[in-house]
């Protein structure tokens, strides 16, 4: 009789963990974390009349991928993409020196055209290569590697300034060409 008053009855909290674990496992199994990383592109606006915008031929770097996943870079058949990055960089940074390459980085357009039968994986491979070329250009201008440039933290003001400086005057003009009807 006297012990009842002295002992403090505690609820056993050990099983609480079991309940929480059960819930945790349920959520682990039933959920996917949204994957928000990838290659970003801006599509051109929809225009009804396809008036042709005059682009000086030399300012256009043409890449074609056919349905056999073969590459045609500037009219030359290429077995793979080695050297493409270098070619694109030379093209963009030409500044009018070579009469076959672009007149200025601002006007330079890299056009990527695919056939209906091209595999998506190859398209991504070329697109990635083109973006790498641009990032290498940006990086070199501020003394960073392409990877370092891409990982600049844009919320940090000094790093944002470096980022802007690298990009200034050289827009990433990658055009995904209108498919043939």
């Amino acid at each position, binding site marked *: 009789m006297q012990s009842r008053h002295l002992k403090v009855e505690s609820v056993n909290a050990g099983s609480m963990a079991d309940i929480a674990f059960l819930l945790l496992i349920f*959520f682990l199994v039933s959920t996917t974390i949204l994957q928000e990383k990838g290659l970003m592109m801006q599509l051109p606006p929809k225009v009804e009349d396809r008036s042709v915008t005059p682009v000086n031929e030399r300012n256009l770097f043409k890449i074609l991928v056919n349905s056999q996943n073969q590459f045609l870079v500037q009219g030359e058949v290429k077995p793979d993409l080695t050297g493409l990055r270098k070619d694109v960089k030379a093209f963009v940074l030409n500044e009018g020196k070579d009469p076959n390459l672009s007149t200025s980085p601002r006007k330079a357009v890299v056009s990527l055209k695919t056939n209906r039968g091209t*595999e998506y994986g190859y398209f991504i491979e070329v697109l990635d290569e083109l973006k790498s070329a641009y990032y290498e250009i940006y990086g070199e201008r501020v003394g960073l590697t392409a990877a370092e440039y891409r990982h600049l933290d844009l919320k940090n003001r000094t790093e944002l300034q470096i980022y802007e400086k690298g990009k200034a005057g050289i827009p990433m003009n990658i055009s995904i060409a209108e498919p043939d009807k």
Partner: protein
Amino acid sequence: MKFKSKKTNKEVEISTASLPDIVFLLLFFFMVSATIRPKEEMLEMKVPQAETIAKVERRELIRELNVGVPRNPAYGSEPRVSTITSFLDIEDVAQWALGEKETLPEALKDQMIVLIKADERVNMGLINDIQQELRKSNTRKVVYRTLEK
């Protein structure tokens, strides 16, 4: 020599009272950071790899489209488009995009980002068709989902 002290008689227990707190913390993290997957993945997808990956800062703007061959042969062996919940015909993509735009707040409607998660063996014809549809509905920001190389 005998090392028998009074202490050994007493049972030393580690308090497990804080364990639920830890587990609940984990639980809340998963509840907040995850979206519930309504169905088993319907499409076979092997996402391509790339180097120059960018991260979307505002994930609430993202709407996902999947492209791939259906896992269940009853839905055919041709690549198809699906949202996270159901299959979508290619002609309905523009309509879907407009519908999804309505779910965003007014100020953010034009900033909707469509994340295209496609199998690397899918033909570009289908991807191009999707893009044409998206242009029709004026949702022009596209992210091609890729894995890090």
